[in-house]
């Protein structure tokens, strides 16, 4: 019984975790500019993330070590520094964007410019990490993150033509504006498949005390959670496709996105949009900071846990403190949050090979996973994702230069 409670929690966490500033920004930009036609990329991203999370979760449950830990151990200290550096730089950009998301939401609500909110938001996040346990952080953001369901309500209220949506869920080639189409595709994938998500999931499995008994829970959590989360992202794409695209409104500023829910749902939609943006971005802020601090602590062998008092894991605590405060700086000095987000998404997409390819080796290592190594389906998926990650790496910079915004 307790196990299924955990499943429910895990699923709920994934819903809120999936929808954050990156997916909201990229999905609505895609919907506004290309209607339903990029929905298939969301499906691709969601499925890929689901597989990756199941694998790092399984890794943690069976070996009782997190992915970062095993990466260091299997491949050595020198090699480990490469994925560490890549994840640090890229996740830092995403972290700054999430703080931007909360700040913009607060600006839209109060009229006070977003740059003033960055430091207070970072301080609040820090205080929660300092005093809160992993359970509180996880459950709190999960339950509050359910407000994101407003996107589904909004999309349904707009009465989309489901056959057209269905066609959008299948891969298609662009007719015009090709560079922009593929640019948005890359940024959607970067928003969906973020390394911090599966690194955090792996550390979370250890924090929650998962063992071999939890492999089923793991599979359901990773699968269902991402299904719902991805579904919400598709809903935000649909809403943008029906509210913005017909009027030829392009999303150039975050402020324009609120209209996507204000149109079908009135004031309630507007308020809930702001709440969703605020809460999901704040939740992601905490998640990313923890994921980065975990990765460093696990890789370097420091004491770490969100359940310990900071005095017991001083380096871990110092790391998350410094990171969250530093990440507030780009937004505090007034950088355009939407541009920051777009760049962060593309950078994430480009950085995937260094964390996806080593996973392939680990998931087939019988010493680590005993008899739970990858089957043909997981391996097939992982090979596909690895190839995809290389394509993204090659395409990212040219597309950013050609069609970025």
């Amino acid at each position, binding site marked *: 019984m307790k196990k299924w409670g955990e499943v429910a929690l895990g699923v709920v966490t994934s819903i809120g975790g999936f929808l954050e500033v990156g997916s909201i920004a990229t999905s609505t930009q895609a919907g506004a500019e290309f209607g339903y036609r990029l929905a298939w990329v969301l499906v691709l991203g969601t499925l890929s993330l689901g597989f990756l999370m199941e694998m790092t979760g399984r890794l943690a449950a069976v070996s*009782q*070590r997190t992915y970062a*830990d095993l990466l*260091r*151990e299997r491949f*050595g*200290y*020198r090699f480990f*520094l490469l994925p560490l550096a890549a994840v640090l730089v890229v996740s830092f950009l995403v972290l700054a964007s999430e703080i931007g998301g909360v700040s913009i939401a607060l600006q839209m609500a109060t009229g006070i410019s977003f740059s003033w909110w960055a430091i207070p938001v970072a301080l609040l996040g820090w205080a929660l990490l*300092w*005093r*809160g*346990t992993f359970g509180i952080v996880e459950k709190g953001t999960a339950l509050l993150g359910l407000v994101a369901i407003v996107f589904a309500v909004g999309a349904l209220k707009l009465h989309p033509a489901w056959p057209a949506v269905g066609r959008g869920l299948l891969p298609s080639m662009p007719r015009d504006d090709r560079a922009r189409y593929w640019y948005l595709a890359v940024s959607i994938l970067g928003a969906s498949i973020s390394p911090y998500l599966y690194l955090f999931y792996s550390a979370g499995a250890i924090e929650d005390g998962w063992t071999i008994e939890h492999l089923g829970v793991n599979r359901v959590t990773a699968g269902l959670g991402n299904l719902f989360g991805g579904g919400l992202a598709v809903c935000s794409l649909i809403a943008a496709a029906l509210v913005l695209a017909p009027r030829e409104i392009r999303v150039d500023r975050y402020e324009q996105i609120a209209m996507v829910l204000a149109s079908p749902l009135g004031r309630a939609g507007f308020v809930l949009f702001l709440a969703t943006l605020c809460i999901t971005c704040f939740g992601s802020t905490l998640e990313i900071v923890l994921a980065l601090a975990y990765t460093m602590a696990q890789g*370097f*062998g*420091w*004491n*770490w846990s*969100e*359940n*310990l*008092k*900071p*005095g*017991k894991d*001083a*380096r871990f*605590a*110092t790391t998350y403190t410094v990171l969250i405060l530093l990440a507030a700086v780009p937004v505090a000095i007034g950088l355009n949050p939407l541009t920051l987000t777009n760049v962060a998404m593309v950078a994430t997409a480009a950085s995937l090979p260094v964390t996806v390819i080593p996973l392939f080796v680990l998931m087939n290592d019988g010493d680590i996973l005993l008899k739970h190594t990858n089957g043909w389906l997981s391996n097939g998926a992982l090979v596909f994702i690895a190839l995809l990650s290389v394509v993204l790496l090659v395409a990212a910079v040219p597309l950013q230069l050609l069609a970025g915004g």
Partner: protein
Amino acid sequence: MGGVNLAHDVLDAQLVDHRQEKIGRVDALLLELEDGRPPRVATIVIGGAARARRVGPWFVALRRALRWLFRQRAEHVSRIPFDKVRRIGDSIELDVDERSLESEHLEQWLKERVICRIPGAEGEQK
């Protein structure tokens, strides 16, 4: 077939002290060579130049330059006799206390000077 694969199980393995606190990873092993006797693993080394060497010569040079710049004299290295090893498993348990280790210098320094200055830091579990 007993014995322990040093390269696989010991080098770079996670170390914990007698209270299960994590104290870093094995950065180097010192072997004792005596005439007429087989080599003996004498010491576990944590931290310092040994760790820097594992990244590469450029990192050793960088570290040396930074230490000169910040006028650091003390080498925060721990050399623990191998007979302090209690258990070798997923991590290696040592019969030492983290508070007495030189290599935990940064952790202790941060704890005293920074972390414990902020309310809410003391204690065991949250």
